[in-house]
């Protein structure tokens, strides 16, 4: 419930025409005030936000709202930097579009660290009230309501990927080309597979193992395995790496997103040899 409260409060107090800074301040605008005054007292300092699990979702939201706030950029010369660890989904594709707009204008960077087998990072997909799996939501309400992750993802896996490494970087692409669209679908399928595998473990009374994939210790262990590989990189450099971010962050880029229903997605998939081939190739 508190995320609702948080977001309602945010829009209410920060962005509506009402007096934004009255005495009954929300937690988030109080944090923003404090941060702005710290930045004013310490010129040249940068702003970071982080958290694990639920804290990862919160820092993603906080970083987003901080970067969207004009005052932040009067005091800050660098992007707001979010480092979220094991964060669940935060918002839908419209949130992603807003988030990417801030990234495109250099106001925000987000390193999203996720273990491939960590179910929390693939949630929420199952809703007891609605009782359907997230991609299925697209059937009825259109893809705009499906959850989307944001930021540059560092995914770490128990076993190696095809390239022999246990990690890979990726960045959410739009659906402008058949390749990017096919890639999105196959990534979703991989996530789904990991989710099912983890659920299987829970059913087999191995919930402790699944919870282990989500623990700070497991994240630390995997980060140390890839220390030499990622130790030569920086977040800013990754944000400039076209082989990871593609064209989506280019100045003036207009993302192409299908905000339509599943029927239209099916039509696009069945109409494109590239997409079909790519999906079948990945399935092998």
């Amino acid at each position, binding site marked *: 419930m*508190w*995320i*609702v*409260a948080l*977001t309602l409060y945010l*829009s209410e107090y920060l962005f509506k025409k009402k007096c934004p800074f009255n005495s009954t301040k929300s*937690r988030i605008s109080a*944090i923003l005030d404090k941060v702005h005054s710290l930045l004013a007292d*310490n*010129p*040249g*300092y*940068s702003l*970071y*936000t*982080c*958290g694990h*699990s*639920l*804290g*990862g*979702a*919160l820092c993603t*939201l906080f970083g987003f*709202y*901080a970067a969207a*706030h004009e005052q932040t950029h009067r005091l800050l010369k660098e992007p707001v930097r979010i*480092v979220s660890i*094991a964060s*669940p989904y*935060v*918002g*839908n594709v*419209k*949130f992603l*579009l*807003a988030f990417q*707009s*801030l990234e495109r204008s250099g106001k925000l960077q987000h390193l999203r660290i996720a273990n491939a087998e960590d179910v*929390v990072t693939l949630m*929420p*997909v199952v809703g007891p*009230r*609605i009782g*359907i799996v997230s991609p299925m939501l697209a059937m009825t309400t259109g893809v705009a*309501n499906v*959850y989307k992750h944001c930021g540059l993802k*560092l995914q770490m896996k128990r076993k190696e990927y095809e390239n022999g490494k246990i990690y890979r970087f990726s960045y959410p692409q739009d659906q402008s080309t058949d390749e990017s669209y096919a890639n999105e679908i196959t990534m979703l399928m991989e996530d789904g597979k990991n989710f099912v595998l983890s659920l299987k473990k829970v059913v087999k009374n191995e919930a402790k193992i699944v*919870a282990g994939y989500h*623990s*700070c*210790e497991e994240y*630390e262990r995997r980060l140390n395995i890839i220390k030499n590989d*990622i*130790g*030569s990189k*920086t*977040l800013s450099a*990754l944000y400039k790496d076209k082989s990871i971010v593609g064209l989506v962050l280019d100045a003036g880029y*207009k993302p192409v997103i299908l905000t339509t229903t599943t029927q239209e997605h099916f039509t696009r998939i069945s109409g494109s040899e590239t997409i079909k081939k790519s999906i079948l190739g990945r399935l092998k």
Partner: protein
Amino acid sequence: MKSFFDNLALCGFSSVNELYKKAIPELNLHDESMVMLSGALTIYMVADLRALARKGKATVGIEELQPPITINKILELIKANTRNLVDSGDYDNELEGRIAALENLTRHSNSMLSNVVGKKTRLVEFVDKNDQNELVHAITVNDAQMRITVIFRGSVTKTDFITDAKVAQTRVDNPVHLIDLDTPETMNLHFGFHGKRQHTLFS
């Protein structure tokens, strides 16, 4: 005759801080991740220690845990209360290992990490009100790395989080629409993590 600082200003540096800033390279991705992970991990322990202190079950009172306080001091206090924290039930034997790992990060005096999580970091704000189960955040300032970090605590237990997640979304105004008209007017955010333990902002 122009002073050193006037010359700096002529070179385009508006303040000494800015000059200093130019000398600080961005952390590499491994150090960055470890620093942020340490922060995310420490906030769980600090909140738990403060809760114990409030109940009078720690070796220190809550007033000794109020910011401003250095991170090193906090780690010292957590270490002194290892047994109390384990007895409180939320930790198993992993706690000692965690503390050792954090100490290790701060001990190596030459490493970048020690500058970020070590003695040069001050905790300037820690808000956990009275309820251990509500939204908890901390703000730290590090003068060596010249950074301000806002840290949020995760869910109280890992399993609670897994059971409590829901799929519903709520529509809110998109603040970026005011800056970039190409972005949608509204957006959907996670409706929240339902549950008896997560009623936080208004309770």
